[in-house]
């Protein structure tokens, strides 16, 4: 079966790139893109970087204009949520009450920011996921707060802290782990991330949690698990993301920390998923994974779109086996990582040094090259990423001339 029409739920990066891939592949049936946000697809990475710093206006984050979208012949239904889907009847229910019977379905509903367990709501308390979130945070920064507390030193938290500190505002970062990003990059590199924050004048508190956000209407302070209290006019919570897959509970699709797909991104006949919301077995790493990276959203959406078009018997369904890759910009450091790294993997510095904060470190398991982390070494990271793709051994990668 090849779809005669395609409905894409989630009008952001993965949704848009999926629609473009369908058209590139020659699909000329109707494409409808349903999106909860009021905006046409825009780019999120600048929200914690150039948009938050004030360098870029909001419209520079746009990924497509309405004219280009009509040229692509994609109908966008914005400010519309998909409430439910039923696989057996293929009925998609929308927040405006309409029930669409869909043919091909592409799920690209992404993820949302995790909030503090108490679910507090106060003026001055922010998460950063959407353009609207960023506009709200930006407006609070324009009121010259005396101190901002960032909860969580993961990638978003670290970038937010870096951007806000660069604006000349005092920042405290609270991180429950021993080191920022220790779980992703390992404690050795995590410790360097911590040093970088401190050198820039950020008040970094590690190994402590948040007990409460204090304030009436507006945030006044953050009480920490070690008993201390930090005054703040603005608090940004960056403690991870949750896939937007609840709306598919009871649909007949498997919802398990995202939408579970097969190796080829197919979730059910005529249904594919891609981007932050998709979980699938990546054969290259022998691991069922869900990847919250910008580049994956594009690559997976492209793969999933083609999968939807070529799913009949006899059509070659190729497995999706990418080497995950992402970047994060913090202060003047460009951090990049490719592959999959686990605690216990062995590691080896291959270029530069920790002291100059410019280096690449390789990670290996048995004799396999599994990952690479680079600080201000973008070219090296890409070279080693190719070696991971090519299945180069750890020893050969270490001795390679890059």
């Amino acid at each position: 079966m090849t779809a005669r029409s395609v409905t894409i739920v989630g009008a952001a990066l993965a949704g848009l790139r999926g629609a473009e891939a369908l058209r590139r592949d020659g699909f000329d049936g109707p494409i409808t893109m349903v999106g909860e946000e009021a905006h046409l697809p825009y780019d999120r990475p600048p929200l914690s970087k150039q948009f938050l710093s004030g360098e870029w206006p909001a419209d520079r984050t746009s990924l497509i204009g309405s004219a280009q979208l009509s040229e692509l012949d994609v109908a966008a239904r914005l400010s519309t949520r998909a409430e439910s889907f039923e696989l057996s009847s293929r009925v998609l229910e929308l927040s405006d009450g309409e029930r669409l019977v869909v043919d091909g379905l592409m799920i690209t509903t992404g993820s949302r920011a995790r909030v503090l367990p108490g679910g507090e709501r106060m003026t001055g308390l922010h998460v950063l996921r959407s353009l609207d979130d960023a506009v709200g945070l930006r407006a609070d920064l324009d009121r010259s707060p005396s101190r901002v507390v960032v909860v969580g030193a993961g990638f978003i938290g670290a970038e937010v802290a870096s951007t806000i500190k660069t604006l000349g505002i005092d920042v405290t970062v609270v991180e429950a782990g021993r080191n920022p990003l220790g779980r992703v990059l390992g404690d050795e590199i995590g410790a360097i991330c911590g040093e970088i924050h401190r050198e820039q004048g950020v008040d970094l508190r590690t190994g402590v949690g948040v007990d409460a956000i204090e304030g009436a209407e507006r945030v006044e302070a953050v009480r920490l698990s070690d008993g201390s209290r930090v005054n703040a006019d603005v608090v940004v919570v960056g403690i991870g993301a949750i896939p937007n897959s609840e709306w598919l509970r009871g649909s007949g699709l498997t919802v398990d920390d995202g939408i579970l797909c097969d190796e080829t991104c197919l979730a059910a006949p005529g249904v594919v998923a891609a981007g932050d919301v998709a979980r699938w077995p990546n054969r290259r790493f022998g691991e069922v994974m869900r990847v919250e990276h910008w580049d994956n959203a594009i690559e997976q959406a492209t793969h999933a779109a083609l999968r939807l078009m070529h799913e009949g018997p006899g059509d070659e369904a190729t497995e999706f086996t990418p080497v995950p890759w992402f970047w994060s910009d913090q202060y003047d450091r460009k951090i990049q990582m490719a592959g999959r790294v686990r605690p216990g993997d062995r590691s080896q510095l291959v270029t530069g040094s920790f002291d100059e904060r410019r280096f690449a470190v390789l990670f290996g398991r048995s004799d396999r090259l599994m990952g690479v982390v680079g600080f201000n070494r973008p070219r090296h990271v890409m070279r080693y990423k190719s070696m991971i793709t090519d299945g180069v051994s750890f020893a050969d990668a270490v001795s390679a001339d890059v």
Partner: protein
Amino acid sequence: MKIVVDYDLCESNAVCMQIMPEVFEVRDDDFLYVLDENPGDEHRSKVDECVNRCPKQAISVQD
């Protein structure tokens, strides 16, 4: 078509080079060089892929 790179945005991560090594080259000096600024129209979809996959939105095409 003419390829234009905004070097203030480019961070030399060589994503484009992986897609079109015949057009983009990040050399050992860590700078990006555009080897062919005017690839023929038959390369359009590859060039579009470079534009889309550049994480810094540093590549644009002028027709």
